[in-house]
């Protein structure tokens, strides 16, 4: 129910404007950056240690950033500093166009999964002191780069949503304010799987997902696991859940590479969950035969 009317005129107008203004803007940018550097330098001189960051830069529409490159930033290091802290410092003091997603700073929003020194990790949960310096920071591999460290997450969301990621049951209790019963053991069983924060680190690390774009991927399968194993949904629904993950690009694609399990910032035993679903699927198929 949406009306989308493209306004041709303004669009072309702004475009020409942009190119003509580009020079001046870039010069001004440079001046500004020099200013910021100066201020930052004052900070640098009393810092004991400097950490060097090599950050991937790319912007499809800015001259000079169309070809991807690595920029080096030198950031004063302090105890307890995380990769995200360093990125924020670099952005606020050296180059305000440095772009990355972040929000909670406490490993719960899942927006800052990055490729740091060749491994998928959350910027906010990675101590600089645990890394080899200089620190190389890139956007997540196997995802389209939108700009700098920001990647397109649509594909990941699509996969997550393809497994019917919502609770379904036909047997809700009748009484008013009556909850469904769930044993502690059963809650314990699904507990780890419910901790996923949709950061997509696992998906990015999986070679199979890289090769087969339709592969559901570890996070989505884990999501399916979360419901399939929840006793509150009932047996019928479990059957249905297994059908979903048994699809061509479902669990059978997993080659137990374990890299998803290795990188998951929430320590979810993804491979184990996938394997368990494979066995469950075989078991239920054996019932059919």
């Amino acid at each position, binding site marked *: 129910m949406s009306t989308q009317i493209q306004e041709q005129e303004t669009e072309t107008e702004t475009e020409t404007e942009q190119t003509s203004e580009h020079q001046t803007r870039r010069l001004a940018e440079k001046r500004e950056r020099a200013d910021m550097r100066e201020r930052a330098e004052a900070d640098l001189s009393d810092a004991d240690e400097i950490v060097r960051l090599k950050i991937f830069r790319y912007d499809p529409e800015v001259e000079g950033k169309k070809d991807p490159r690595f920029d080096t930033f030198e950031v004063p290091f302090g105890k307890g500093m995380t990769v995200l802290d360093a990125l924020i410092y670099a952005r606020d003091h050296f180059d305000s166009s440095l772009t990355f997603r972040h929000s*909670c700073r406490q490993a719960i929003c899942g927006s800052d999964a990055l490729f740091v020194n060749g491994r998928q990790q959350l910027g906010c949960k990675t101590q600089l002191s645990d890394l080899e310096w200089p620190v190389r920071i890139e956007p997540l591999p196997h995802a389209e780069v939108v700009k700098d460290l920001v990647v397109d997450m649509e594909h990941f969301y699509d996969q997550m949503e393809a497994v019917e990621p919502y609770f379904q049951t036909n047997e809700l209790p009748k009484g008013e304010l009556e909850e469904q019963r769930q044993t502690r053991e059963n809650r314990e069983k699904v507990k780890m799987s419910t901790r996923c924060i949709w950061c997509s680190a696992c998906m990015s690390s999986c070679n199979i997902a890289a090769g087969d774009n339709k592969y559901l991927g570890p996070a989505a399968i884990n999501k399916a696991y979360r419901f399939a194993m929840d006793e509150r949904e009932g047996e019928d629904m479990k059957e249905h859940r297994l059908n979903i993950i048994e699809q061509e690009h479902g669990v059978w694609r997993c080659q137990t590479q374990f890299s998803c399990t290795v990188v998951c910032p929430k320590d979810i035993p993804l491979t184990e969950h996938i394997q368990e679903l494979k066995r469950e699927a075989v078991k239920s198929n054996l019932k059919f035969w």
Partner: protein
Amino acid sequence: MRIHEHDVIVVGAGGAGLRAAIAAHEEGADVAMVTKLHPVRSHTGAAEGGINAALRDGDDWELHAYDTMKGSDYLGDAPVIETLAQDAPEEVIQLEHWGMPFSREDDGRVSQRPFGGLSFPRTTYAGAETGHHLLHTMYEQVVKRGIKVYDEFYVSRLAVTDHDDPEDRECHGCVAYDIKSGDVVGFRATGGVILATGGDGQVFDHTTNAVANTGDGPAMAYRVGVPAEDMEFVQFHPTTLPSTGVLISEGVRGEGGILYNSKGERFMFEYGYANNAGELASRDVVSRAELTEVNNGRGINDEYVYLDMRHLGDERIYDRLENIIHLAEDFEGVNPVEEPMPVKPGQHYHMGGIETDENGETCISGLYAAGECACASVHGSNRLGGNALPELIVFGARAGHHAAGRDLGEAKVQTGPSAETEAEENLDTPVEPGAIDAANEDVAADGALVEPEEVVEYAVEAERHRIEDLLAHDGTNHAEIREDLQKAMTENVNVFREKEGLKKALEVIRECRERYQDVGVSDPSRTYNTDLIHTIETRNLIDIAETITLGALAREEFRGAHWRREHQERRDDEWLKHTMIAWNDGSPRLYYKPVILEGENKTYEPKIRSY
């Protein structure tokens, strides 16, 4: 011009926004969510503790309401508090039916545990990640219902008619900046716009809130004429990690954790801040004690104190406080089994916000607010732990239902400037608050804009200009302004408040406003321009900071989370009233409206708050 049309538009997709969208959908409305973060990235996910609801025998909603009223230090409105207590059980069971993985009892029912300030263990929880599960469970329901989500769309302006009196104005939609493509997009809402933009902790430089919690909703509503209510009431948490603001739960002190200053003194006792309760004194007492230590030169690095739990022994730590070890290691690089953890107070929750009634509606028809950005008011001057999450689902649902046309009955809470009973006449501000050029840039000033389509189109056009200007202008970097603002707020408007400091803060805020006139965005890109977004947010922070400080300066008493050096007592005779600030088209005006203490079955008598 791209204009999307829906019955109900929900701005923000945290707990409150998601619940509102589901409610509107239940009502049969065509609802869409517009959010600057993908829903699962919202800060509701960070809540750990739990959700209060009177579910069991021996407990009932009246007890919950009573506890909440007492916790609010009698500044909450009874009809709203009672609505919260009455609706919470049903809403929590609803969550359970949607599959939320609550912690369980042996008999398979949802577990409840005791929480500070509650007379009954009524806090339901899901491990130490209640908010995460609440957020994800509701997003799942949104996916199930196929509700349209415009994710990574930054709402920067409300489309409101241009009547002189805010109470005559109507909201017809909003304008958003599509972060990925750089388009300015209009949203037309035939039923209503629900703001659910969450907290505004970024006003301070140290907070448990997310970087995205910049108070956009309250700032936008405030500027189109909705009064801001009780803004001076900001809750601080005494134990947060200095570098990130990550919260170290009260559990550490509960288990016997000890606070030390740089001289190794157990200052809670040594300097008599709380000779009986010591580390277990209430949040505000501990926060102030910590800051006093630092101010008196007994802090470490002039910044924080130590929270030590080593003496508890490895076994007990691993058994009960394991997650604390991970938090300290991951976010502070400290292993709390081997060394003490640095902690300092941090902003945690804002009780004040957009003035609404118990149906979530503001004085502008068609404009609603729910969640932390709203002030109905449930929490009064102090929020009890575990009461924010039920607020999200209860008032989120009510706002959603009401916007979609369900009849919820006449609201008991009066809203808008007409509810004023008393004006603030002699507030002594060192500088003029409000817009620099008093002219109202937020509503077309000629009073001609009333047609819904026009209102939205005008707003889109205005916003497009503002963004073009910001992009074209090379001026001050917003980050400098933001940093100075946050520092000033933390220095002067945090747990310690005194007249001179508050005035100082107002001066800095004014300066920030002036510097903001010259702000520019140096990233020329249309694609994912976070520089631009942060620049717009900074404007909102300035407005919010000002309301907090004005409220704090006006309220000459010590109530709940608001402490004044000059006024160390709660003064019910004079201050049993809500502080209201109206933007007043650019020149803010303070006034008061009464607190409603008459509940359904009883009237709440203010008592001394002691536990």
